[in-house]
């Protein structure tokens, strides 16, 4: 039932490497991007060695194989998040592009000056800046669900905001800094009662939790392959069919059209309407292999394992004098531990840990407003995934004591 982390680690070649002679890699930066297991690397390698061709319209063997692989991956991804149809899965470059797709198409077709969009104070820049840009262009209004001192969304304020009839509620399912897992189903239900459309930034949740778009009743849901054992350069936007069908296309070009005349075009059907030009085909194949891999390990087991590692990490980190953790207690969060260390800048913490092969991230993690809210320019962040171990947590803790010693 529970996950065998030693067996899992054997699937990830990079985890066997040393960062310098005799110093094994301790990778605690999976929230930024996950490492890639052999089945993903091999699927992409196999695609390039055997089946590489441009997709759709080709009639030769390779083109048919490539098309079938590209579309089979879409089916897998749809099933993984329990979408009713693969037509609801639009390939994008990443979560950021998925959110921008909604901002450029649905929002520009449906929002006008004065319309309210509700975001939260814990958003990644990718779910802030597209709306800032639309605000500048269209004069839409933005308001924010506040984050409490405990690192949770203040749902009472949210309910009050909903009385102003928002058109869209766009929020992160899981904070990339605080690790907070937000009550997405409840946020969406309340938004729908107020007549709003919802967009879920699921970049951090889809890799780590079982996400079911039908149970959530999400209108749009965005995520990236590279945070879930897949390659960079590909992500997905899930949308409800009736919304996607009414939306204007995104980028114009080949593949997104049904017919082109010299002076006009007719857009293609879903999902191709939103996929202009030659897409990331090998990456789609890798994305599908990543979904297969995570499914074979089991999302429930992954979540349980991460929770155990994170709980242990929070416990151990809390003991360190001068270390301050951000975000809610383990019960409300995923495998993320963001912290500051008195007297030492996070960049210095990360740099010194790197000497011991420990990879963590330091900075504002593309969530500058959230850091401003807590009155700090930056944090150090360790994050965990299915291959993380408690031994690695111990190495992290020892490393932090070394940092303290150096800065004495």
């Amino acid at each position, binding site marked *: 039932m529970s996950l065998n982390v030693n067996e899992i680690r054997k699937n990830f070649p990079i985890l066997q490497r040393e960062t310098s002679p005799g110093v094994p890699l301790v990778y605690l930066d999976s929230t930024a991007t996950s490492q890639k297991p052999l089945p993903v690397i091999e699927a992409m390698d196999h695609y390039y060695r055997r089946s590489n061709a441009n997709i759709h319209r080709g009639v030769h063997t390779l083109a048919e194989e490539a098309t079938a692989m590209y579309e089979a991956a879409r089916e897998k991804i749809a099933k993984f998040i329990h979408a009713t149809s693969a037509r609801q899965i639009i390939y994008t470059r990443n979560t950021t592009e998925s959110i921008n797709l909604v901002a450029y198409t649905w929002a520009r077709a449906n929002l006008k000056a004065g319309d309210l969009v509700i975001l939260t104070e814990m958003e990644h820049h990718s779910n802030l800046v597209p709306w800032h840009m639309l605000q500048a262009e269209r004069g839409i209004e933005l308001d924010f669900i506040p984050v409490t001192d405990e690192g949770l969304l203040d749902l009472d304020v949210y309910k009050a905001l909903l009385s102003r009839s928002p058109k869209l509620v766009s929020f992160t399912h899981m904070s990339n800094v605080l690790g907070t897992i937000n009550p997405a189903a409840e946020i969406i239900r309340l938004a729908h009662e107020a007549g709003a459309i919802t967009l879920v930034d699921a970049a951090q949740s889809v890799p780590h939790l079982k996400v079911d778009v039908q149970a959530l009743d999400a209108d749009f849901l965005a995520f990236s392959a590279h945070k879930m054992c897949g390659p960079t350069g590909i992500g997905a936007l899930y949308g409800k069919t009736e919304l996607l069908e009414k939306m204007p296309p995104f980028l114009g070009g080949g593949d997104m059209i049904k017919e082109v005349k010299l002076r006009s075009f007719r857009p293609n059907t879903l999902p191709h309407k939103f996929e202009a030009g030659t897409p990331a085909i090998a990456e789609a194949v890798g994305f599908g292999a990543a979904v297969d891999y995570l499914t074979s390990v089991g999302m429930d087991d992954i979540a349980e394992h991460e929770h155990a590692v994170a709980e242990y990490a929070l416990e151990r980190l809390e003991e360190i004098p001068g270390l301050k953790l951000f975000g809610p207690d383990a019960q409300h969060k995923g495998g993320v531990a963001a912290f500051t260390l008195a007297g030492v800048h996070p960049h210095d913490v990360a740099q010194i840990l790197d000497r011991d092969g420990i990879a963590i991230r*330091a*900075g504002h993690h593309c969530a500058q407003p959230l850091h401003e809210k807590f009155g700090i320019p930056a944090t150090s962040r360790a994050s965990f995934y299915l291959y993380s171990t408690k031994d690695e947590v111990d190495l992290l803790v020892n490393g932090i004591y070394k940092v303290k010693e150096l800065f004495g």
Partner: protein
Amino acid sequence: MDDLYREVIIEHYKNPGFRGKLDPHDISFEDNNPLCGDHIQIDLRVDSQGVVTDARFDGHGCAISQASADLLVESIIGKPLEELKQLNKQNILDMLGIDLGPVRLKCALLSLKVLKAGVYGLGEASDELVE
């Protein structure tokens, strides 16, 4: 244990000799390193001959950015502005006595960027100033 955190850097970070602000001042400039949130402001007093008579830095950030600011400010007092325009990346690395990768180089060079933008009277500090 490691070159990057030589004693001189830790010492200038923890006990900077030239942290503060000058009021009045003749030149003042500030800028951020958006990557890690480092912030540096440098104030200068300059006499009629164009020589720096006093200088201070203020701000916050990592040990590399703050130590290099302290070392830089210490080194420019008594120097003519024209000479400061000639300072470059290598001067900073020589002062720190270390070599840096591309990410941390930005931290180390922030103070020089701020200084030169101020000396040239520019509206914005650009990376070209320290190349």
